[in-house]
């Protein structure tokens, strides 16, 4: 059992979910309630990582992470670090790959809030922030929680993108899923088996909890 890899995976998953929490809420509200030109385009762009082979995403990220490419140069100017083979690069890749997992459940949840409820809040003189905190989030919380749980779980299991942009570097980019691949190739089936069982149990618990969450919501609202 590679505990460094487990810790790295947990850290990456938590950071991804935290970054996507505000990003997801803002985007999901926009898509749920606003009608504007290019809305369909934006929706499609956010969903496309869901169906894209990880190698395609990996390829474009690799090009973007190249030290001579503008994104990598900007990052280097800001932090002095590199995007390739670093946790920061992995986090950026993971945020992009997980956009649909965060936005879609939240969008469904915000769409479920009746318009007259929000209108009532405005008429009562609640500020936009108060409306969000006191009205919208309490109504949308199962979707928001589902989004965070799914993002967390999907990041724990991400393999292709991490393999392409991370490069299997111990304690920096060797996540649990990469460590399993690494151990399999080293004939260390015992370690690979233990880590696989951990990920299997974890993923099952996550999906199950999402279903429970969903069932509770349905039970209450309809």
């Amino acid at each position, binding site marked *: 059992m590679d505990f460094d890899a487990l810790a790295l995976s947990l*850290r990456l998953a938590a950071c991804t979910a*935290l970054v996507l929490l505000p990003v997801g809420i803002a985007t999901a509200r926009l898509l749920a309630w606003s009608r504007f030109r290019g809305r369909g385009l934006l929706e499609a762009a956010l969903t496309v990582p869901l169906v894209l082979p990880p190698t395609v995403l990996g390829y474009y990220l690799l090009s973007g992470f190249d030290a001579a490419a503008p994104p990598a140069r900007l990052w280097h100017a800001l932090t002095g670090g590199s995007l*390739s*083979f670093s946790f920061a690069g992995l986090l950026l890749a993971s945020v992009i790959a997980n956009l649909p997992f965060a936005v879609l459940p939240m969008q469904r949840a915000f769409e479920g809030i009746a318009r007259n409820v929000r209108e*009532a809040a405005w008429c009562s003189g609640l500020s936009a922030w108060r409306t969000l905190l006191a009205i919208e989030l*309490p109504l949308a*919380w*199962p979707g928001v929680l589902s989004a965070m749980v799914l993002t967390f779980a999907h990041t724990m299991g991400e393999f292709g993108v991490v393999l392409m942009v991370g*490069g299997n570097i111990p304690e920096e980019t060797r996540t649990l899923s990469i460590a399993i691949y690494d151990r399999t190739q080293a004939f260390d089936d015992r370690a690979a088996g233990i880590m696989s069982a951990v990920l299997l149990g974890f993923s099952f618990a996550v999906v199950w909890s999402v279903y429970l969450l969903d069932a509770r919501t349905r039970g209450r609202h309809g």
Partner: protein
Amino acid sequence: MLGAVAATPSLTPRRPSRRAAAVTLATGLLATLALAPSSVPAGVGPLVAVAANLTTAAEAIARAFEADTGIAPRLSFGSSGNLARLVMRGAPYELFLSADEDFPRRLQAAGHTLDEGVRYATGALALYLPPGSPVAPPPVSGDSGAAITTALTHPGLRRLAMANPEHAPYGRAARETLEHLKLWRALENRLVLGENVAQSARFALTGDVQAALLPLALALAPELSGGRHVDVPGHWHAPLHQRMVLLKGAGAAARRFHDYMLGPVARAILARHGYGLPPARD
């Protein structure tokens, strides 16, 4: 209007509700995980990129090194070509154990190394026949070449595993061997190419592969001991001289491991895994 809000059942509780607590708890957990100090302590072992043919040997050497010095090298395995490309892209490896001499030289030409490196071993290729393979020739003494030709032309050979010759030096040697035997064209569409030799060795154990061209070191690995192997004559392919090179940014621990690779303990381990050795240095 406010009545509409109040009438929505899930809005009624004004006190901190269980669900608010759940979201807060989840966010708090995530924040704790995200901010938890990275597990990398100061002064960790050197980061070493290792060609996959050394999978078993390098782990044994790393264990011996740790026992002797208390420093545990961190090993990343892959095909030499892929590892070299990672170094080119700026991967923070400190030492590169290649399966050939060409990739270290290319890294040197590109300015990624501290020096021209040093040869630490010479590998050998073997034809591995997994347990129950129908193409396994009867045990022969002496002429291994004839046994290999017999196996590779056997009609029962439907899948032959080897490493990708594009970026794995042992895959290159396997291709040269098949070309030497004038069998490359006949077998080309029956090849199963591993990304590196360790993956090819895994393929050899799937039961769907009747033979594999592998590094002798992997054919000797305990996990593969159920099958048989035949040494491929060394003159059928270009020699598999293996060079290692210290990379820019190599620390003191990486230099120590580099020197350890040339010392008696590592040499004994390499010899046990079937490698030829360069003359000992003083």
